[in-house]
């Protein structure tokens, strides 16, 4: 076949193929082993060099060696030849080596198809907007390569225009398939890494420094949108884990005593209820970070005895949950003795000065004790800072009487210690405080930098009451947010520090776009699909009716596209059609007529390349020339059609 020029790959096609291959393979460099990325890059550079110098391609055996070496390297690196990462690595390897054996059009076609397949694999690793945009560019390049392959030399702009037009025409089908194709619960292939990437968030314990470290991330923890009005900023306490066990350094949740039934929380809400929907980033924990305190829970979740909303499973994917909360509440006015006992427990011996101070207050009523402690934080020389000095064994003593510089965890920890030492049941609550409204989409954005720790004390008759000692030290933290509360020069993430309006607006727009993407593209799950289908009149469809509607809609879209393009399609007259069909038959037998080739010239070439077809083709070409360029009646048309029927049957190997 290589002797037939029509099957050889055109020189000008190669740059398109290489650009498509490069655009498709390049983003994988981020997670492939370095040696493989280098191998891929050098293979492509080699091909570019060969193309530029019009050198012959490397011999088959050297390619075979390269493939064997590459596959062996992949097998050695991944300890297997199966699995997602290995498969992707092999595909990228093939994508880089295939250009080195593109002799024929067929090879180029294989490359383009491989490229289309490789595009899909990127979604294993990232499903973000930039990835989507980049893959769109790569897909356009691959389509451009396909157009160049079939359409011959054209200006770049013409190819780009046609490729974009083709992709645009695919858009209705994309939408129909995306919206209607039966969805399965849970991912088919395992999730992309960024679905629960950067699993930063609150942890299951709190020690000095744990929150001030978390704060340095500007990543979004969750977004909330309130159905009605948004509560005051000072009321925005998003409840995470509750810690009631202290070992002198670290606060943890106490392990509930085995065998005892879990006490049901009793919440009496008064005042306004706020309904809102949160979109939580994956954080690999169960808590749902609801506004304090929840009165109505989403399905498949529960309220812990310590009032935090918990999902049934750990949140490994971005989740959308709806709550109703009240900010004026009384919680557990009658508390289980076990919990109260735990809320008074302190480790032995440590922090003697704090204990001594607290024992002076023991005679006061509990509210007074709390007020005294807060007054101490307010009046004495305490500072709110992200960079507190390190503390030793008697952490609370050192903090209260020595350094006096701390972040919210220091204040919450010291306050709860003092309360317990004074005989008031108290515990630490960790979560987020505040949030920033994104005016673009109306979502309240809560970042890791809004992480916060506060305290709760139990008062007879009032239940658990929130006390935020940080508010006593730095009231602006609660009223205006972390940025206002911290002095200049504290290491805050730059994303929340944007002082220029346009930068802030840009960030808001970008985050709003990401939010919509998350909700409508990534978060389009079976449930959302059901919602959408019921809106168009399909209630609880089974897969048969979904497939049927899919087929009907695709058919309709096809019909519309056809009707749209039909008037612009030139009517092919019978002479042209007969000749084109004859040429197509010859193409199946290995001789392709170039688009610019006239009938007699083609017949002469056929006579040279395939003498056994010469007589018939010469007759067909004569007829066609007479019909199209001469002055003759319809008689040659019948003969032309007969010529096609008289062609010998194709042999298999010619295909």
């Amino acid at each position, binding site marked *: 076949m290589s002797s037939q020029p029509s099957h050889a790959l055109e020189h000008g096609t190669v740059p398109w193929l290489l650009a498509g291959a490069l655009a498709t393979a390049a983003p994988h460099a981020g997670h492939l082993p370095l040696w493989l990325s280098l191998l891929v890059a050098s293979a492509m550079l080699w091909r570019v060099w060969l193309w530029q110098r019009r050198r012959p391609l490397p011999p088959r055996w050297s390619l075979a060696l390269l493939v064997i070496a590459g596959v062996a390297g992949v097998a050695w690196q991944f300890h297997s030849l199966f699995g997602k990462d290995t498969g992707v690595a092999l595909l990228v390897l093939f994508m880089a080596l295939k250009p080195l054996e593109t002799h024929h059009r067929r090879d180029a076609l294989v490359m383009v198809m491989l490229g289309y397949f490789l595009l899909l694999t990127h979604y294993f690793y990232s499903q973000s907007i930039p990835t989507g945009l980049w893959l769109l560019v790569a897909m356009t390049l691959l389509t451009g390569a396909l157009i160049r392959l079939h359409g*011959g*030399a*054209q*200006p770049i702009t013409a190819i780009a225009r046609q490729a974009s037009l083709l992709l645009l025409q695919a858009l209705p089908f994309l939408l129909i398939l995306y919206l209607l194709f039966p969805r399965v619960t849970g991912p088919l292939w395992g999730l992309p890494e960024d679905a629960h990437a950067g699993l930063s968030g609150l942890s299951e314990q709190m020690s000095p420094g744990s929150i001030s470290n978390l704060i340095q991330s500007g990543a979004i923890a969750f977004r909330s949108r309130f159905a009605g009005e948004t509560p005051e900023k000072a009321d925005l306490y998003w409840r995470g884990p509750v810690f009631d066990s202290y070992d002198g350094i670290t606060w943890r949740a106490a392990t509930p005593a085995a065998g005892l039934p879990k006490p049901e929380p009793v919440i009496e809400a008064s005042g306004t209820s706020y309904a809102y929907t949160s979109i939580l980033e994956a954080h690999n924990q169960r808590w749902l970070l609801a506004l304090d305190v929840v009165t109505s829970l989403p399905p498949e979740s529960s309220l812990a005895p310590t009032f935090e909303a918990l999902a049934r499973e750990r949140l490994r994917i971005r989740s959308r949950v709806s709550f109703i909360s009240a900010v004026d509440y009384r919680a557990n006015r009658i508390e289980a003795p076990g919990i109260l006992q735990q809320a008074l427990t302190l480790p032995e011996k440590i922090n003697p000065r704090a204990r001594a101070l607290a024992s002076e207050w023991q005679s006061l009523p509990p509210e007074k004790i709390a007020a005294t402690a807060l007054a101490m934080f307010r009046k004495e020389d305490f500072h709110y800072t992200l960079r507190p000095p390190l503390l030793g064994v008697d952490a609370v003593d050192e903090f209260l009487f020595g350094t006096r510089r701390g972040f919210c965890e220091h204040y919450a920890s010291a306050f709860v210690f003092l309360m317990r030492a004074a005989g008031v049941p108290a515990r630490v609550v960790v979560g987020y405080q505040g949030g920033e409204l994104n005016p673009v989409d109306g979502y309240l954005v809560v970042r890791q930098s809004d992480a916060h720790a506060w305290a709760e004390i139990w008062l007879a008759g009032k239940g658990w009451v929130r006390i935020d000692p940080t508010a006593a030290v730095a009231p602006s933290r609660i009223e205006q947010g972390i940025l206002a509360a911290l002095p200049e020069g504290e290491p805050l993430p730059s994303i929340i520090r944007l002082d220029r309006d346009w930068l802030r607006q840009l960030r808001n727009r970008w985050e709003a776009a990401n939010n919509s993407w998350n909700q409508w593209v990534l978060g389009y799950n079976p449930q959302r699909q059901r919602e959408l289908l019921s809106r168009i009149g399909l209630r609880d469809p089974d897969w048969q009716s979904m497939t049927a509607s899919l087929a009907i809609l695709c058919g309709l879209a096809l019909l519309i596209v056809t009707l749209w393009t039909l008037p612009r399609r030139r009517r092919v007259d019978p002479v042209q059609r007969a000749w084109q069909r004859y040429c197509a038959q010859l193409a199946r037998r290995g001789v392709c007529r*170039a*688009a*610019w*080739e*006239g*009938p*007699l*010239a083609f017949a002469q070439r056929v006579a040279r390349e395939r003498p056994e077809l010469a007589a018939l083709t010469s007759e067909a070409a*004569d007829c066609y*020339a*007479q019909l*199209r*360029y*001469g*002055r*003759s009646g319809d*008689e*040659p048309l019948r003969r032309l059609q007969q010529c096609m029927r008289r062609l010998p049957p194709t042999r298999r190997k010619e295909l």
Partner: protein
Amino acid sequence: MQPILPTTRPSPVTRILAAANAVILGKSTQTRLALCCLLAKGHLLIEDLPGVGKTTLAHTLARVLGFQFARIQFTSDMLPADILGVSIFDRESGNFRFLPGPVFSQVLLADEINRATPKTQSALLEAMEEGQVTTEGETRPLPEPFFVIATQNPSTQIGTFPLPESQLDRFLLRIELGYPDHDAERALLESGGRREQLPTLSTCLGPGEFAALQQRVSTVYSSPALLDYLQALVEATRQDARLVHGLSPRAALSLLAVARAWAFSDGRQMVLPEDLQAVLPAVACHRLRLLSGSHAGAEDIAALIRSLPLP
């Protein structure tokens, strides 16, 4: 239905070509193009290195067609009068008598036309355009038919005045001869120079027969589909970003005329796309200039043809 390829006795064109090809070895395409140029009533420009047979081709054609032949060797000190003729005083009759110059012949071989000064060149080119010569206030018609076959050295050679664009356009075709192939050159070496064979050539055509052929050429059919393709080709030259400008309507007419002659020389009564493709380089190369400043080459034209599907 009439057969496309001739099967009966050789047509006059075939005979002319056979006779010419017996003298000019291995250059059948160029001879055929040159003959087509004359059949389409145009002037021919042959451009190549000295010694590849330009003059022989011109001379042979004149002989085979039975035309009166004259030759001017252009030099840089040549004046228009050397071509057109001069009036001298005849002492016997006491009048001025016009001595016609070499231009008064049917086939004029203007050898190395780009060695002459522009003034002399334009004297000849005016004669080509008008078909008549005006000297000293008197207009004298040139003989019928009147062909100029000009040869030109590649303009890269020293001592040449390249023909300007407007004058190049007066030539219907420009062809290059190139070196002969191996076998042709061997035959040439074995049989000696070609010029000696010229006197032995006999005329293939009777008087008036060439005019009849020209008449038949002009009736060769060009279908609407063919004209579509011709227009597409011409428009492609106008849209090609590598070219300074495209082909003019006059060039399009020339292309059709030569393609008709080419089809006729193949024994056909209709023009096919192949005919346009075959003659396009000779029609277009000297009329198109690349952005780089040089004239378009045959490979540029071939690329253009390949980029354009048949309608």
